[in-house]
């Protein structure tokens, strides 16, 4: 990565950040109005991660789906594989907020947890 441009998401300013590798292979961030921008830029360029929220099917519950999320960030480039891994998953009701639906997704150490309560019907 030589140069990269990003929009900071730290606050509504949305500063345009310019990220470069300097002579000592250190990341240099310019364009940020505050420290949040610098921290964000470095993370986005070295190890961009995201929380993934999606739904999976439910069996025997009041609703046909349950909303779930990764209980921690996962690397951004694993998002679609994560979703693919959940494609055929069906979970049995009852489900409570926080229940682990899928452990250690894609070997990341991150679990998919339920974010909604689904009662049995």
């Amino acid at each position, binding site marked *: 990565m030589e140069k990269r441009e990003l929009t900071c998401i730290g606050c509504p300013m949305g500063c345009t950040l310019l990220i470069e590798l300097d002579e000592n292979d250190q990341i240099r961030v310019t364009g940020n109005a505050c420290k949040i921008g610098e921290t964000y830029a470095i993370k986005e360029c070295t190890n961009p991660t995201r929380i993934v929220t999606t*739904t999976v*099917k439910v069996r025997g519950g009041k609703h046909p*789906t349950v909303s779930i999320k990764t209980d921690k960030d996962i690397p951004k480039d694993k998002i*679609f594989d994560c*979703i*693919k891994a*959940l*494609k055929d998953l069906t979970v049995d009701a009852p489900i409570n907020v926080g229940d682990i639906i899928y452990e250690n997704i894609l070997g990341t150490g991150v679990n998919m947890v339920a974010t909604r309560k689904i009662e049995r019907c």
Partner: protein
Amino acid sequence: MYDVVIVGAGVVGCAIAREISRYKLKSLVLEKENDVCSGTSKANSAIIHAGHDALPETLKGKLNAKANLMFDKLAEELDFHFRRNGSLVLCFDEKDMDKLYELKKRGETNGVPNLQILSGDEVRKMEPNVSDEVVAALYAPTGGIVCPFNLTIALAENANVNGVEFNFNSEVLSITKLEDGFEIKTKDKTIKTKILVNAAGVYGDKLNNMVSEHKFTIIPRKGEYNLFDKYVGNLTDKTLFQLPTKLGKGVLVTPTVDGNLLVGPNAVDIEDKDDVSTTREGLDDIMERTSLSVKSLPKGSIITSFSGLRARSEKDDFIIGEAPDVPGFINASSIESPGLTCAPLIGVMVSDIIKDKLKPQPNENFNPKRKGITRFNDLSLEEKKQVIKERPEYGRIVCRCESVTEGEIVDAINRPLGAKDLDGIKRRTRAGAGRCQSGFCISRTMELLHSELNIPPTEITKFGKASKILVGTNKESI
């Protein structure tokens, strides 16, 4: 072999069907769409004209005023919404007064009762929102408004209950003349009939020209409309027409029978008989031209727009009667304004022709009365209490904007010729016709179609054929 096959389940086809169901006739209505009332009948001004517009020497002129007077009894028998609100033809220029008087005279010749010329001030006293540009108006107290869906569906249901069959998604592909009638081919079947009635709307020419050498051409004339929120529905109580000016035939501003405000139509001849799209030019045009009639139109209160095609032929009049060279082939074609108004009378006319030819026995079981879907919102508190006790589904509101209950939707699906798609439910119950335009109720309405008719949710359509709402389940294409 059928006695009668009617092609087209619009208001004219259904009116004819209802009339012939008074007799012992083996009858069938073939409709190419998924439901009745799918063509011009669903997209028009919803006006029951007083009858002063039509030229006296035309069929339109002869039928209009008489047909208008049928509506009170018909609305009671068939339980559809009709209101005689009265209409005003607005005149904007003193120089055009003679045209106004001419209309009055024409109306009187046509048998329109109680026509009056009012001054601009008298008009504004009657309707305070009428613009200051108006100098005079022709007041026709017998003008009315109707729900064209209610009307068509009521006629169809009554016909069906009294013995007429209906086949949908049954476009007529070919007609062969037989010794004693006709052989009709649709994609699913071959049907033989003694009499064939052409009520095929904008496709009426195609049907006629399949068998008759007396050809005619129908040019679809598109008319676009804007429909406004009920909050502004009382902008006018009377239907406001415009005296034709140099700019052409005017646009109307009218309350609808459900309390919305309707504005339109323009008039653009097109080629594509299936083109019911609205256009930017058309929608802007009707708003501009309406500004003549009323002081201001609350543009921010529009909830939807639509367009309809009138079946217009070079004859400039209804084409009703047996084709001169094809006995048994009866046209009820080229029906444009005042088609909706004249439909019940056209039904009688065509039925008389059939009666004359086939001399059928009366249908002793004919029941002229039809009870529509109980509209929960119109019930008194006591009646509401009672109906929920008997039918708990009436205790759950599905369409918030129009206060339509689950019970009404279930009824709409399960009645004769019941709703099979979302537009069918909308036209029978008004669920989805309100200000949020089905945003809130669509998933619940689909669930009811699924549970009542066993249609998989991914097969449910807006109006049949390929108009599906959903494409599949989540992650299916991953």
